[in-house]
């Protein structure tokens, strides 16, 4: 409960920017849109069946651009880390929406070319979070950064499954939407 409230407040805190982007996203659905190009180091690039891009068919996102998307956070432990941490970032669902993704499969790839694919429907749930901050700090590669697709394992027992663990891809840097 505590975690959820915390998420809500975070969500409300990001109210204005999110409102703007949401309006933009909803009105832009169905037709190609563009976003400003990333100014900083690109930490995540989205490609494939998307309608919103900021490059050559790619939506390349740096930390600042990610910060303009609706923010979400939760605190959880994982089987790969010691203790708990509060992870903040953008829900995969929100990112896909922002990107105007229309494909059926979401393919996610890590720096070390570890790759997983999941049905878009699974991606549209409340769970998967594209975290780029742990306890408010950017995550280095050594700390499974820059982006870690993480689930609220502590809050939702249903996520404590092998498949979810397999989908919890860290050092994520590419997302491709395919049909």
């Amino acid at each position, binding site marked *: 409960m505590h975690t959820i409230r915390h998420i809500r407040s975070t969500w409300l805190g990001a109210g204005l920017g999110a409102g703007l982007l949401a309006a933009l996203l909803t009105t832009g659905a169905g037709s190609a849109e563009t976003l400003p190009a990333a100014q900083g180091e690109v930490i995540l690039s989205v490609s494939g069946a998307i309608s919103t891009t900021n490059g050559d068919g790619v939506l390349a996102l740096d930390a600042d651009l990610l910060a303009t998307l609706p923010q979400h956070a939760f605190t959880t432990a994982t*089987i*790969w*880390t010691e203790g708990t941490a509060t992870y903040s970032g953008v829900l995969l669902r929100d990112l896909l929406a922002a990107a105007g993704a229309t494909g059926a499969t979401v393919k996610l790839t890590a720096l*070390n070319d570890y790759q997983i694919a999941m049905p878009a429907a699974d991606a549209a749930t409340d769970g998967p979070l594209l975290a780029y901050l742990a306890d408010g700090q950017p995550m280095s*590669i*050594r*700390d499974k950064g820059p982006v870690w697709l993480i689930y609220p394992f502590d809050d939702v027992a249903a996520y404590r*499954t092998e498949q979810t663990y397999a989908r919890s891809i860290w*050092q994520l840097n590419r997302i491709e939407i395919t049909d």
Partner: protein
Amino acid sequence: MRWLRSAMVVLIVLAFVAIVVLAAQLRGELRLLQEEPVDSLHWNVTQLELDVVRLEAAATLAQAVPMADLADLRKRFDLFYSRADTVTKGTMFLRLGLSETVTPLKSRMQAFLDDTAALIDGDEAALRAALPEVEDALGALRLDLRAAVIQVIDVNAALQDARRAKLSDVVQMIALASVALIALLLGLLGMVVTLNRQAGRRAREVQRITSRLAATVGTSLDAVVVAGMDGRVIEFNAAAETIFGYARAEAIGQPLANLIIPPHHRAAHDAGMERMKTTGVRHVVDAGRIRITAMRKSGEEFPVELSIASNDSPEGMIFIAYLRDISDARRAEAALVAARDEAQAAERTKTSFIAVMSHEMRTPLNGVIGALEVLGRTPLEPKQERFLTLARTSAKQLLRHVNDVLDISRVDAGHAGLLDDRFDMPALVATLVDPLRPVAGQKNNRIDVRLLGDFPPLQGDPFRIGQILQNFISNAIKFTEDGSITVEAEVQRMNGSQVEVELRVTDTGIGIAEPDQDRIFEDFVMVDPSYGRSVGGTGLGLAISRRLARAMGGEVGVESAEGEGSCFWLRLPLRSAADPTVVAVSDATPHQSQASPALDVLVVEDNETNRIVLEEMLHHLGHRVTLAVDGGDGVEKARARRFDVILMDLSMPLMDGWTAATAIRLLGASQHSRILAVTAHARPDQTDRLEEAGLDGWLTKPLSTASLTEALTRDHAAGASPATDHPLETFLDAERLDDLRRIANQAGLHRILQKFRTDIERTLATIDVDGETASPADLAAVAHAGVGAAAVVGASRLSRELASLEAACLVGDATAMKAHRAGLPAIWLGTLAALDTEIGAASVNGSDGTATGRG
């Protein structure tokens, strides 16, 4: 069955508990598998190795191209760093239980990372310079990592195997427990089905028995009434409805006592129920059949035969009464008793007719034989002598016939008059056989006597035994010629003083054909009538023998083969005499011409012929004779002077012999003389009356010289012992008392005598008080009741006196009535005293003190 069921239930519970426990365990295992999955060990360790290899490749590449960017090397390092960190800090090994095993791996990686991280994070030149060392370190790390990883995988494999085995075991055990549970449940189900079927069968059986029982009770001809402990009716069957007149619905729930028990029996019934409730003592219940009086709805009382059974029921003790209306049976019984009484009365009439006839025949016969005796002592011509012999033989034969018939009627009337004397069997046999030897010799027969066993003095009727034996021997002589006759006597001791005597008379005569052997013991049967007539006989000898033997509790019989001979036997139960010193020898055989002193004899006889005959006989025997023509004359003469012997005819007109004898005893010179009755009424049952009248003995007419001699001699020798000294014989009927003692115990006897005493005292009081005023008929009725009561206990004197009073009342003889009434109190006192002596003072003399009535 019950323990089996319990065992199964226990097993089922155990199996169930086992399944629950195992399921919980399984669930735990499954949750471990399901909810807390771990990262793939193989993936991670492979990635770890792969990351090292890639890092090593990056290092090699960086060395090969001196000016190349080191960013890729640094990224590879970071990726390995991250991987190592994940492996080191993640929960995977902890979850897999490999924390210990993985420690060397962790420390090896940590050592490398600690050494290398500073170089990677440092400036490029230093890093580039250290590249060869880094590459070497990486090579070493890769080898070590591989070895460590293989070990981890080995251990993990073993662990997973163990875990799977455990899981498999649990699943197997659950399966096993489930199978067992199912089997047990099926068994239980089978048992339930079986029990259910059994219960059904039992229910049907109970139903069947119940309906059968209901049908049985319902159709019973006897009334069946069931009552509870509270005495209320529970069941009342159809027969009960018919017998008692109540409808079933009417009877159910009512107190049994009010329904079927006559009011005057209810108190006893209630007391019985109460006694049973409190003490459990039962007199009627489960006591078999009893007869009581019951009552119908109409109030009519009737006799029933009843048996009551008790039974424990769920509602407590119940009583089942079976009742049978025996009114009809009672009526039939009464009719039967009446018929029997009539038949007995007819029989008595016949017997008394025969007795009277015998008297009528024997009185003239007495005259004939006596006259012939007298005639025989006068000088006769040879021809006259021959006719005289013929006449004598015929008269004696006729007398025998009369005696035989009389014997039969006596025994049949129960008046066999058996003696209970001491006697000596060998002497008896000898005295019987000896006189017959000459007769046997005439037909060239020899008589042998054989005594088998040691004969004690015996107690019994030697006269009757002798009569039977004489009959056997006479028959043997009759039917045997030129042969031998063996008389055998055998004794066998039984318990105590009981002995069994068998007398056998075996001859070598003509024998008896098989079909005739039973017949000869019947009345008037002669196998060869022509022969029988020629030897003289009525055909009653064996019939009398059999009657006498049976009267004595014995039996007679014959074994014979035609042409070879016969063996007649007599078997008798007897007692050995208590005192062996006094042995009376039977006088059954006459002793001819016995010398005896001359006596003064008074003959009291109304019949002139008899008087003359007696006179002649007595003269012939050398006695002095005085004659009296009737009772009065006799008394007068007896009082006038003393006679040694008085021969008294009993049947005389005016004053009879009884009265005369009593009168003589009262006073006069012959008060203490021997008085002998002479009578044709050969009724030994009157013996006591003889003694009571003061008579010392009796002679049966017609008299023979021999019997007369015997009687006179014996009486004379017997000395002075007045028979009247015996109160028992004066007042009581010993036989009757013996009967009473046989049929009742001491207490019963006392009760009977008490009742008798009460009855008689009331009778006597009534006679005493109302004697003057009451009508003769009423007085006769009172006396009659007394006669019966007195006869029952054998108070014979009293009974006779009351009978005389009754007779006097009926004919209206006032004088006699007065005389008999006056005599009653003394006789009553005597009777009481006699009973006192015989039975014991406690029984009769309660309050009156000692009665003095000894005569």
